[in-house]
């Protein structure tokens, strides 16, 4: 058997998801779905002083989508929004690498646990699973007013609702 797509880090995050739960105090909420697996994720974000000060999520679906959302949460909370967007972009590049990513050491350090998803990039049917939470985060940040017109709409917004509570 070749190396499994299911790295221990992925399984750990699936079994013990981080930042799962929807915070009461938030600026925007988005709901994204991945029709391939029927994965769903709802993300709420709170921004302040150009940073993501809080993010919580809820969802159901395959382990790749849920674990990836968990990893994403841990990485972006407390980060300046610009850095979070740059990291999202690095993760997107990793997912589009078809298993041949050439990450710099700096990128690997930044991605941290998210590097474990590299194996997913070899399976076109599963890439959307790994990207689901990241795309939702990006949309939620845009919904919260970050960058306003600069948002390029890479994430698919299936439904969005929720004003600051």
């Amino acid at each position, binding site marked *: 058997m070749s190396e499994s*797509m*299911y790295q221990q880090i992925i399984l750990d995050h*699936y079994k013990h998801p981080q930042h799962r739960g929807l915070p009461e105090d938030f600026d925007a909420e988005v709901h994204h779905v991945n029709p*391939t*697996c029927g994965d769903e994720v709802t993300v709420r974000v709170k921004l302040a002083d150009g940073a993501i000060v809080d993010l919580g999520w809820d969802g159901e679906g*395959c382990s*790749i989508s849920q674990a990836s959302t968990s990893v994403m949460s841990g990485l972006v909370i407390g980060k300046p929004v610009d850095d979070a967007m740059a990291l999202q972009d690095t993760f997107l590049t990793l997912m589009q690498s078809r298993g041949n990513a050439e990450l710099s050491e700096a990128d690997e350090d930044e991605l941290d646990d998210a590097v474990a998803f590299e194996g997913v990039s070899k399976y076109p*049917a599963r890439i959307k699973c790994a990207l689901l939470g990241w795309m939702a985060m990006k949309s939620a940040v845009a919904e919260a007013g970050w960058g306003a017109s600069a948002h390029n709409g890479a994430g698919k917004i299936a439904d969005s609702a929720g004003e600051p509570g």
Partner: protein
Amino acid sequence: MAFDVETVRKDFPILSREVHGVPLVYLDSANSAQKPQVVIDAEADLYANHYANVARAVHTLGSEVTNAYEGARDKVAAFLNAPSRDEIIFTRNITEALNLLAYSLSNATTFPGAERFRLVPGDEIVVTEMEHHSNIVPWQLLAQRTGATLRFIPIDASGPNSGRLVESAIDDVINERTKVVSFVYQSNALGTINPVKRIAARAKAVGAISIVDAAQAAPHLPLDVQDLGADFVAFTGHKLYGPTGVGVLWGRYELLAQLPPFLGGGEMIETVDVGGSTFAVPPHRFEAGTPMIAQAVALGTAVDYVTAIGMPEIRQHERSLTAYALDGLLTIDGLRIIGPATAIDRGATISFTLPGIHPHDVAQLLDEQGIAVRAGHHCARPVCVRYGIPATTRASFGVYTTTDEIDALVRGVDTVREIFT
């Protein structure tokens, strides 16, 4: 000669390959079946030695290829025990066969002499809740075009009747308003084998046309269209160990002779005038344009192949496999069979769920062990809705499947469960 699965396996070159460094265990035959060497060779041989267009060329190659193509029609007619070879129409797949009927029926709205096929508001089209999308969507569209109503025979999702049609609903849903009844012989999502004769007889009693989707039945059990009593039976070639790109629609000649055409073009006409055209008799009326020649010929070879093994023998082999697999899978903690839990009136297709583990994770981890299964809603989403689940993992067997492979599946699923526990 007695059925011997090891002998059969030698006919399928792909079964000797490895996936992720381990021998391939292919349990996705309900999705598409693998091809024996004779089928692969038949297609290549036609192109290498006999190829030209059919029906219109007077030269030698044209005659050879026409004989081969029409010979395939004879083989399919015999395979289905059809009363006439002219009742066999080659289509692209079963989806096209069902759409051919749905569009021919709506063309009846304005086609002279086709009054008996016309649908109007108040008329009803009946399918079942266990249909594949290709036997739902064409009828939804036909209902939209004609104002007719689409109705569903429900299925039970629990108890001893789980995965079967609600018997008491059949006579209610199929009634004097029903004009078309289109239903699946063997469910691709549940494995259920439906009481075809019973439903076809009810359709006949109320004067409705009956159509049987035999995509999942043709590879697994003997088909006798005269015995079934339905008006139309369709299947696809690639699930019957044949090539992709070719399917079959059988219909009673009397109906085909009155049914308006679906696609217009070459070969389907009698005469063409700038003011209008008249149409060829069946089957050519329904085969517009250059057909899938090599694929139809190779489908004929696939029919020869399964006939030589014997459809009753294949049925028996797969019935044992199904019972063996159900026994094995049910030993796994928490595993739930979606569909009939016994091998009675069910085919060699088994859907299941594991608590807390998404089917795509199950299928992906099985793939890492060399085992190919399908995960998803199997293009039969209403079934998943009825069971209240997003998707299932499905293992499906074929003539080449062994008990060793089922053991590998059961071990593999148990490994998946351990990884997630």
